[in-house]
């Protein structure tokens, strides 16, 4: 099947070369980080996680959202998703690959990453995160590849893959729950110490992932004539819409609990993010952008007349991406560290090298996604020609 990725128009090869160049540049940037340590980042003693972990958190959500396709298609036999489910599964694979790369990029001693396996520590949530992320990667690789290979031979997927598909449904929920638990179980960080964190993560994930997938399906249609289907996108758009509403509702619940109880160690973080705290307010414009984008997206996606117009659907999906990427990325991570447990304020902003390395990781994700989509689309189109 992989041979499908070895044939293509000059445009395809040009794109791959561009991605490889980007990855090469980022690898060069990373060589500085490897030599000089994380000193080349904007992170500090007080804000000890930054852009890498922010993007990691967001992408776990994108990965988990494949369940929004797998569940209707395989469990409820929703045939409309027949052409788009494979795109969702492959997006999950590319996302998990990026997640793992972001974690490794964030380590002070990346060469020792195997210590997590050599000294397994079940009381650490990071140990479980490693298990669920790797497990999810393999589940999606096996499921996506096997179903596609069967389709190519015009056969139904083998029976043994069914249990794996069913397993992947709760597994998808688990990856984002465990990721939320990384933060939600820390006693001194009021911003994260809330039971709504995992549900809020899942809600924003089920908005962000399908929104990205809708955008990708338009891109694939424009480039290859393979159309995942208007009806499939329409259903996905509804999922995005209700998920982003849930996300903003959960956010409101958090704001109420924190705002009405007025417990300073919880309130200080929201104050910092939305209004600035002791003269520091670097994220204020971003979080308000996210909030406005979220509400604007609801308007565009909830009204059928708007949703059915491709231009507005695309705009709505971009707004959802902006909203969730800011909210679950920088705002979630920096917001939790500022102020620190001693109520001191140190702000964080990524450095240029940090940004370059981040783009490089996205480049790897795009490369994996391009190759997987090339294979999937080639096989789907071949099948339709017959």
């Amino acid at each position, binding site marked *: 099947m992989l041979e499908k990725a070895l044939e293509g128009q000059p445009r395809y090869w040009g794109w791959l070369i561009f991605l490889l160049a980007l990855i090469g540049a980022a690898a060069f940037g990373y060589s500085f980080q490897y030599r*000089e340590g994380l000193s080349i980042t904007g992170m500090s003693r007080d804000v000890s996680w930054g852009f890498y972990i922010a993007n990691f958190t967001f992408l776990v959500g994108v990965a988990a959202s494949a369940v929004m396709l797998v569940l209707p298609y395989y469990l409820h036999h929703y045939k409309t998703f027949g052409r788009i489910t494979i795109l969702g599964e492959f997006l999950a694979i590319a996302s998990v690959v990026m997640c793992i790369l972001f974690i490794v990029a964030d380590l*002070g001693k990346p060469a*020792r990453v195997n210590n997590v396996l050599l000294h397994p520590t079940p009381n*650490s949530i*990071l140990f479980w995160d490693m298990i669920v992320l790797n497990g999810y990667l393999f589940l999606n690789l096996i499921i996506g590849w096997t179903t596609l290979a069967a389709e190519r031979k015009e056969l139904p997927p083998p029976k043994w893959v069914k249990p794996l598909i069913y397993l992947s449904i709760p597994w998808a929920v688990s990856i984002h729950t465990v990721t939320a638990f990384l933060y939600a179980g*820390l006693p001194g960080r009021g911003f994260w110490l809330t039971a709504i964190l995992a549900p809020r993560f899942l809600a924003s994930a089920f908005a962000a992932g399908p929104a990205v997938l809708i955008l990708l399906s338009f891109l694939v249609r424009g480039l290859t004539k393979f159309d995942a289907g208007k009806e499939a996108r329409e259903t996905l758009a509804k999922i995005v819409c209700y998920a982003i509403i849930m996300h903003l509702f959960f956010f409101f619940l958090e704001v109420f609990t924190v705002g009405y109880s007025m417990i300073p*160690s919880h309130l200080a973080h929201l104050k910092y993010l939305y209004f600035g705290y002791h003269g520091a307010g670097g994220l204020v414009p971003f979080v308000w952008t996210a909030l406005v984008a979220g509400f604007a997206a609801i308007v565009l996606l909830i009204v059928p007349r708007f949703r059915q117009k491709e231009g507005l659907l695309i705009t709505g999906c971009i707004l959802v991406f902006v909203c969730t990427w800011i909210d679950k990325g920088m705002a979630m991570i920096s917001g939790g560290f500022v102020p620190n447990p001693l109520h001191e304020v140190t702000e964080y902003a990524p450095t240029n090298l940090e940004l370059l390395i981040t783009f490089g990781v996205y480049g790897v994700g795009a490369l994996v996604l391009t190759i997987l989509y090339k294979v999937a689309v080639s096989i789907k189109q071949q099948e339709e020609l017959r």
Partner: protein
Amino acid sequence: MTFNRRDFLKVAGLSAAVGLGGNAAFELIFPGQVDAAEEMKQSPTELTAKRWGMVIDVKKLTPGLRKTITDACHINHNVPTIEPPKNLKWIWEAPFEHVFTEVEQEYLEEAVKESPMLAMCNHCDNPPCVRVCPTKATFRRADGIVMMDMHRCIGCRFCMAACPYGSRSFNFYDPRKYLPDPVPNTAYPTRTKGVVEKCTFCTERLVTGQLPYCVEAAQGAMLFGDMSDAGSAPRKALRSRFSIRRNPGLGTQPQVYYLV
């Protein structure tokens, strides 16, 4: 019997899997059992305790003394001097209102609010940093000291997010670049970039029968001893004066007490 390449690979793969998983599986079923046999004294003069703890007499701390104490620790442990915000600190001065954030008291005397305290690792009975560490690079010893294994730490900084006292520092830089050559204390190891470090209650000194550097430098303002022994210096001090701990409401059971 024929033993072809395929069979060999099967056996080799299986043994590798068992080898990798063996110790791991043991750890899962009997956590901590592997290194349980450690209760032996390393030297006849070693100081031992059931539960080490510290008392800081805030009233006895003068500005000069606070500097002597922090210098004694940082110089002897080869802690590099780096500008904030990527700095490292094992024991440091901070205003009362930042060290004791939970004592929200608007009308607290300005002098008290801003009076500098000493902050350090609390060697909690229930340490969140140990709970979150994915490699057991940070662990709690039988005598209560929360220790670091600099050779096992992968630098994920989960412990820094978990510590509610800001007591952990990360080596963003290669610390040796910020230390004179030779280093201030050649008997104590320097660290490498990419690992987390913090106060260790001077385990290296307890082994040779000496008290921690800070206690030695504090001229009676810091007391160190066995908290399980009612006759120990810190326990006696706690009986005579009112004391507080940093954010005890979090359930971490800090073992550094402040006489105020």
